[in-house]
């Protein structure tokens, strides 16, 4: 079984207490499904990723293999890809 590597950034990493997760997948999986799998593995970050209705948070920054996913889109994530999940930061 192939995997999608999910790397966690900023406040999501802090809330999860780890910097990466692996999601098993045998075929391309939409970003929304990857997020659901992530929440299954680590419920501590659910409120940072999804709202009460299970919809992706507007503040969530997602990149697939280094390219940021446009808001509102739900592209497929290929097995073997790396997904970054982070919140915007403003520390100065």
């Amino acid at each position, binding site marked *: 079984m192939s995997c999608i590597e999910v790397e966690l*950034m*900023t*406040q999501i*990493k*802090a809330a999860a207490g780890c*910097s990466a997760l692996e999601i098993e997948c045998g075929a391309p999986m939409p970003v929304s499904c990857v997020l659901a799998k992530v929440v299954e593995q680590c419920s501590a970050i659910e409120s*940072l990723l999804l709202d009460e209705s299970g919809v992706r*948070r*507007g*503040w969530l*920054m997602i*990149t697939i293999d*280094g*390219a*940021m996913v*446009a*808001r509102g889109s739900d592209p497929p994530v290929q097995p073997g890809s790396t997904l*970054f999940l*982070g*919140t*915007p*930061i*403003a*520390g*100065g």
Partner: protein
Amino acid sequence: MMSELFPMSEPRPLTDEERAVYAWQLDVPGHGEVGQSKLAGAIVLVSRVGGLGSLVAYELAAAGVGRLVLAHAGNVKPSDLNRQLLMTHAAVGTSRVQCAANRLRDLNPSVEVVAVEANVNEDNVTELVDMVDVVVDAAPLFEERLAMNDAAFAKGIPIVECAMYDLEATVTTQLAGTTASLRDLVPEPPEPWTRRFPVFGAVSGTVACLGAMEAIKCITGLGEPLFNRMLYMDLRSMKMREVQLPTPD
């Protein structure tokens, strides 16, 4: 040509004293007296002058930017001193931005420093941004960042977005018509963000130096700014990555 993308103040001819001070950076290929004259004529807004903005202002003053507009309210506190390198123990209890301005004048007397004893807000943002050629955003609250970014886009000047949290940091440079705006990337500020965040001065200083270099590149035309790209750094693992950002519609 970057000079065709946005308006800039006129370059100022260098004095012999300035040629001596900047001798080593005049040797940078592609910079020289033309680039240094652009820095001498340039005006940059840095908001605020905390852990990140202090170092941005310091590097820009050292590099010979002609005028720095610094905006930051409040007085120096003991808890500033681990990272706000323009502040001093002796200045605790006195104006933060005046302390920063005094330190910069000591560093480089030829740089004009305008100290604004206020944080950027909806009431002053247009006036502040109208005064400058380039903005460096080092504010700790999204509301300030979005207000500055909106104003920079309205004026059509570059804004360098530097930010950090814990041992992570990001930097990107945005410009109307060329890149997405901060509001495009952050339509909804994250609820959990708080005014206080974990920080080592070495982390805010790292991203500050990169942000200062972005401002220098925008002013001089040297190299390639981080347009449509975001540099993401994790100093815990020492991994640095470039993220391709969505381009404007």
